């Protein structure tokens, strides 16, 4: 790496180091526990893979194992970021473009940062390499074949990220683009679900025997170093490099403002959408009404929020539909309760952008809540009401789409799923209001991608979601065991009481903390990133 590249790495290290003491001990603790849990789990998976590879001495069997496993790794690397609307860490090109840095250096750094999109897969591949070294039959040196596979994924991931970033910044093309991308991304998922997962090793056999990167890599791993395999892998890496570099160069020349303005239109305030925005003001007294109206308007105008909202009823449906239809027409829990799953997934996406960090999109403008004669609990409630309205709309859209697709959508199922998910939302908002004032973070509403890694996001969910879901899981379990709706609704009613009480207590605490921590909150919301947005 050159001096400039080291300078970027150095500045990012300093930025992270400077940030840490200001995050507070609690924030650091939660991050550390989440990270350890998440990557710890993947380390266990890697050890299991290592043991499996060590014990498999039959070449055909090892190829049969590795082929599908590498296909899954490829899908994880390329599909999960799309699913979580998360691109991992990336260079702050807008800020670095002003310096005389050769494009090749920036490209190399950006490619290296793509490891953050799926660091989990690097851990698993490391496990497979260890297994290969310990395998008595195959040479450990064959593990070098994982390197071009990783390189292929890094280049491809760089290209996909840049392509999507540009696509998602075009106002009119954004939603259509997302739909196309999620359709493409969901195809493997649908295909996988169509196969019997109990016999997943057979997937490789069912796929056409072409020189895919995963099949070629698995052949190389088992020692089949011939010109065909090596040539095929070189070709894959070269194609991925050319695609990545081409998209990266286009990304460097991309003008976000021009793209956003390309389909720009005047907001004259006289259309039907505007009348919808005004509805809360008619039903709620000011200042609550006007604050809800402001939230509805600004959230709908934020690409980041719109994508999360759109993904809820597009990608969510696509990935869960195969399960909802059932593989062999069965009537398992998923088939009968698919609406709860679809609603929960959309709630998960919405919560990330507008529940955990309710002040994020406001950034410095949030100071208006401390300057205007409004109570801070009103501010939090107004944001919660706005997101609740969006969530209700999202559930309605999902229901209609499911009904149109011919799924068994009964009134009882809609009512029950809505009730359960609205209660989940209340729990999330209780925790979210607290996290919003104790760990606020400025978010760029125009930034379509989530900059943090999908892994970190999932790490946090790993801690909080199981806790919040526990009462609901218990209610469903109880209904299954006692075969009684009364038991189910009794437990849900009890959960509702707990949720409301918890929400009230958390709201009071959050409003109090917002008053006491105003300076810290505003400083945190005004802050930007280092050379690498992570």
């Amino acid at each position: 790496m050159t001096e400039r590249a080291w300078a970027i790495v150095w500045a990012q290290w300093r930025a992270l180091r400077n940030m840490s003491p200001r995050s507070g001990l609690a924030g650091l603790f939660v991050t550390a526990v989440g990270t350890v849990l998440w990557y710890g789990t993947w380390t266990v998976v890697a050890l299991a893979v290592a043991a499996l590879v060590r014990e498999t001495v039959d070449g055909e069997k090892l190829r049969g194992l590795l082929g599908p496993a590498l296909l899954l790794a490829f899908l994880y690397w390329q599909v999960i970021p799309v699913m979580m609307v998360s691109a991992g860490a990336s260079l702050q090109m807008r800020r670095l473009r002003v310096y005389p840095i050769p494009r090749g250096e920036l490209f190399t750094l950006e490619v290296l940062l793509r490891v953050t999109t799926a660091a989990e897969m690097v851990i698993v591949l490391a496990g497979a390499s260890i297994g290969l070294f310990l395998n008595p039959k195959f040479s450990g040196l064959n593990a070098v074949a994982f390197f071009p596979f990783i390189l292929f994924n890094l280049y491809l991931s760089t290209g996909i990220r840049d392509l999507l970033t540009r696509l998602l910044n075009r106002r009119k093309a954004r939603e259509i683009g997302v739909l196309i991308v999620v359709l493409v991304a969901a195809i493997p998922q649908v295909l996988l679900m169509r196969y019997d997962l109990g016999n997943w090793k057979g997937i490789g056999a069912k796929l056409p025997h072409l020189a895919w990167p995963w099949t070629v890599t698995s052949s190389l791993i088992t020692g089949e170093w011939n010109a065909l395999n090596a040539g095929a892998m070189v070709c894959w890496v070269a194609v991925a490099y050319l695609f990545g570099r081409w998209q990266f160069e286009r990304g460097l020349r991309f003008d976000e403002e021009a793209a956003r303005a390309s389909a720009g239109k005047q907001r004259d305030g006289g259309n039907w959408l505007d009348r919808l925005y005004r509805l809360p003001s008619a039903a709620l007294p000011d200042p609550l009404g006007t604050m809800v109206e402001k939230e509805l308007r600004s959230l709908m105008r934020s690409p980041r929020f719109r994508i999360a909202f759109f993904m809820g009823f597009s990608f969510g449906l696509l990935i869960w539909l195969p399960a909802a239809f059932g593989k062999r027409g069965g009537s398992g829990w998923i088939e009968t309760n698919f609406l709860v799953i679809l609603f929960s997934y959309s709630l998960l996406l919405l919560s990330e952008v507008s529940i955990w960090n309710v002040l994020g999109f406001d950034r410095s403008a949030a100071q208006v809540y401390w300057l205007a004669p409004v109570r801070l609990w009103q501010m939090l409630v107004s944001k919660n009401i706005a997101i609740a309205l969006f969530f209700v709309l999202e559930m309605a859209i999902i229901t209609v789409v499911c009904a149109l697709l011919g799924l068994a959508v009964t009134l009882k199922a809609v009512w029950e799923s809505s009730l359960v998910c609205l209660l989940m939302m209340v729990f999330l908002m209780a925790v979210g209001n607290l996290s919003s004032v104790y760990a606020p973070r400025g978010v760029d509403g125009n930034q379509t991608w989530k900059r943090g890694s999908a892994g970190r996001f999932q790490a946090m969910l790993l801690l909080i979601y199981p806790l919040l879901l526990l009462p609901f899981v218990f209610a469903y379990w109880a209904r299954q065991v006692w075969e009684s709706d009364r038991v189910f609704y009794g437990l849900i009613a009890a959960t509702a009481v707990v949720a409301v009480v918890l929400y009230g207590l958390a709201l009071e605490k959050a409003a109090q903390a917002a008053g006491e921590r105003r300076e810290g909150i505003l400083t945190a919301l005004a802050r930007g990133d280092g050379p690498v947005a992570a």
Partner: protein
Amino acid sequence: MAQDTPAILVTDLRKVYGDKPAVDGLNLRVPRGCFYGFLGPNGAGKTTTIKMLMGLAAPTSGAIEILGRRLPEGELEIKSRIGLVPDETLLFEHLTGPEFIEFAGRMYGIARPVARERARELMDLFELEGAKGKLIGEYSKGMRKRVAMAASLIHRPDLFLMDEPFEGVDAVGARLMKDILLDQVRQGATVFLTSHVLEVVERLCERVAIIQQGRIVVEGSMSELRSGEETLEDIFVRVVGAGRFSESLDWL
């Protein structure tokens, strides 16, 4: 590189957002060693122009030549010879002042120990020594401008491109910054700045251009423009057209 070429030469520059031209057939010639003021009302196209000069936005059409090299072909060489004071969003807020200046220096290819030493000296020069340990995110607006200007000086550029460099800066800071810039011009550098503070432009700039709706409406030396008793503010208001105070708002 020939020294007789202008510092900035812009020909028929256009930048269109959607169907609205932000810059519409702009022609500009900034001589070397000149203190040049680029003025205009809000939304006139100043920032879009300066962003195109900085290489942050691509023109829809037209040509830009900086220090004798054309953009985008000579992008790397041009960037290494210009000092930027862009809007404050380009600062890294999780770095301290000295860290950011050192980072900027290293981006311009200055060796780390030299960049560190210069960063320390520039912090002192801009009277920021008391804020050495603070993050830029915790700086006031004026301090951010000072640190941005300090970073723009670290590689001794031939041309300064500055977007509102005095915005939010107190009188002492503004004087300091003006003195440093004047000294740079005396040493042969060129300064191209946008500013809403007309008094500052009037006092510092040798030449001025006023842009409105993406086109240059007035361009010339200060002595040419200031005929008679008119101040730069009078000229600006006359050319751009003053907004009328509405007396129809009874409640106001």
